[in-house]
């Protein structure tokens, strides 16, 4: 009989400027009993600083397994952030899933062209949103294999 090794906790970097949406995401994780480590930043520039461990605040930042990215962010928006990390040799393999209110085809296409690994349109129905987050965390946390955390 082999010893049971618990699955390592999924580390998620959430780039979201809207506190209500960030709260809703955490609520969805809680409702789905997903024990993920959620790191929250409010714009693209702060997300880059987190990933590059810049400044005292992010000196001990944990490299995320997955980035959930809102498109409309202050200072550096989601598109600029995507372009920036896909040009960064150290960061480009971290999968980025876009979380956006927009269902416009041009936004979906633009996100994938910039290197997004997925695109999730936020549902206005909370129940549906919670279900979508369960599927999302199951897929990225259990189904697919992600690069070893550095």
């Amino acid at each position, binding site marked *: 009989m082999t010893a049971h090794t618990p699955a390592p906790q999924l580390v998620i970097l959430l780039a979201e400027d*809207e506190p*209500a949406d960030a709260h809703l995401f955490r609520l969805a994780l809680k409702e789905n009993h997903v024990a993920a480590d959620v790191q929250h930043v409010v*714009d693209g520039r702060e997300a880059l600083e987190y990933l590059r461990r810049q400044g005292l605040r992010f000196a001990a930042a944990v490299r995320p397994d997955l980035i959930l990215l809102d498109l*409309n962010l*202050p*200072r550096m928006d989601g598109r600029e952030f995507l372009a920036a990390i896909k040009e960064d040799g150290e960061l480009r393999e971290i999968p980025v899933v876009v979380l956006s209110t927009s269902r416009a085809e041009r936004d979906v296409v633009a996100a994938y062209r910039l290197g997004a690994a997925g695109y999730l349109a936020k549902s206005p129905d909370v129940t549906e949103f919670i279900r979508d987050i369960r599927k999302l965390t199951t897929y990225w946390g259990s189904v697919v294999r992600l690069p070893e955390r550095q």
Partner: protein
Amino acid sequence: MIARISRGVAARPSQIRALLAARVCQPISIALAVFVLAAALVAGLIWRQERYRLRDARGLAATLAAEQAFAMQSGLERALSATYALSAIVRQGWRSGSEDRLPAIAGLLRDFPGSTMLQLARGGVVRQVAPADGHEAAIAHDLLGDPLLGATARRARDTGQLTIAGPYAMDGGLALAGCLPIFVDEAHGQHGFWGLAIAVIAVHEIAAPVRLAELVEHGYGYEVLWSSPDSHGAQLIARSASAVGSDPVERVVPVANASLILRLAPPVGWGDVPGLLWQSLVGLLFCALLAWQAGWQTRLAATAKAHERNLERRVAQRTADLQRFAEVTAHHLQEPARRMVSYAGRLKGQLAGRLDDPEANISLDFIGQQAGRLQELLRDVELYLAADQPRGRVESCDAEQTVAALLSRLAESIGEAGARVRVGPLPRARIDAPRLGDMFRVALENALDHGRSENALCIEIDGSRSGDLVRYRVSDNGPGVEPEYRARVFRVFERLSASGEGTGIGLALLQRIAESIGGHAWIEEAPGGGCQVVLELPAGEENLAPEGRS
């Protein structure tokens, strides 16, 4: 129409110019102008071409005339040289003492083609004729006294030069007679007049070898004239069947005491009438085509212009409709948003202390916040859409009064932020008061929202006038705006901080209002390192009291 307007007192030069331009720019006017210009150009080209052609044609005719005239001159001189041969024979006989014996001269006719008759006249009386047959009557004829040849014979004797008489009729044609005086050495060593040597030359004999007919083949008519001192004016001695056209080419060659003249010209004149007609026809067709093309292009341009104006009208109409729709929509959406804020607040009050689940309280808070945010967004969207429309009389607006009213309205927010606001002198701007108030409100709210730092917030509002412009500055002592974001923050929904602070429309609204009245707005670094919003607007009259202010 123009005359009618010119008479009218109300007609202004600009109206007349516009009417003239409208008339001149008509397709038919343009086509006519192009036709006239093109026709003038084509006429010039045809005239120039015709001039070159005429010069070449006359040059060619002059060359032909010279060739023919010289050939006739040579033939005449050859025929006349028989008289010199006769003179030599006589003088030879004189010197040998056999002057009374008449020499044989008939053989000379063979040696000097062109001479049809030779005569020797001792003392002017014909003594010998060749050929003798048929001319016996000429023997003993006194040439010096002859009414036809006498003058020429006497001139030859008196001048000692070969002299030519004629033309006169002979054997159904015209003939010339060359008279050469013969002088012999007399006993006392002096020259004495012996007599005359005569060579009669039939004109057709001279003309035949010259092939004047070739001139006719080349399309010319010709005339050969003879001019001598005894003839009054030039006498016609040969001509082509076809007439000589006007302004002929003329060649004059001297023969003894006379001149031979050859005139040459096409019977119909030098002008190439069929060619000119053909060229003119082609030219007219070309001009007409060009004029049609110009008229067509003008018509197309006018149609395109009208279409463009129509499109512009439609776009303007649709834009106005859309703007109106957006404004109305934004306005109407504010109502449910306001109600949501009201009822969320009411619900929270009613449930205060009765909810065990903290998540429920959080949700209620978010509902209230988001409804308030929606209301603010809709308010700013409505203002943004109407930013370029004055909301009152555009006049010399008292900025100090506007700012004072604004500070009074925002006193609570200023107090909450713990801010100290200092207002300096503010010159007047030319704008409606509500929009000037909006611009200062946005700048002030921007300072209140983003100017907070470790230090107490200090906001300074001042202004200055430079020529026709006023410049207002709203500065804070906060963290400021990094240079890379100073232009970007004027975009709609562009924010530099997370939600909860501002709608992202304020600065865009401010810039839109400024630009709609010919001004500008930008962000600079404040003297203390904070953010400084600068408004540059048209200046208002300082000493003019604004009208209609309540």
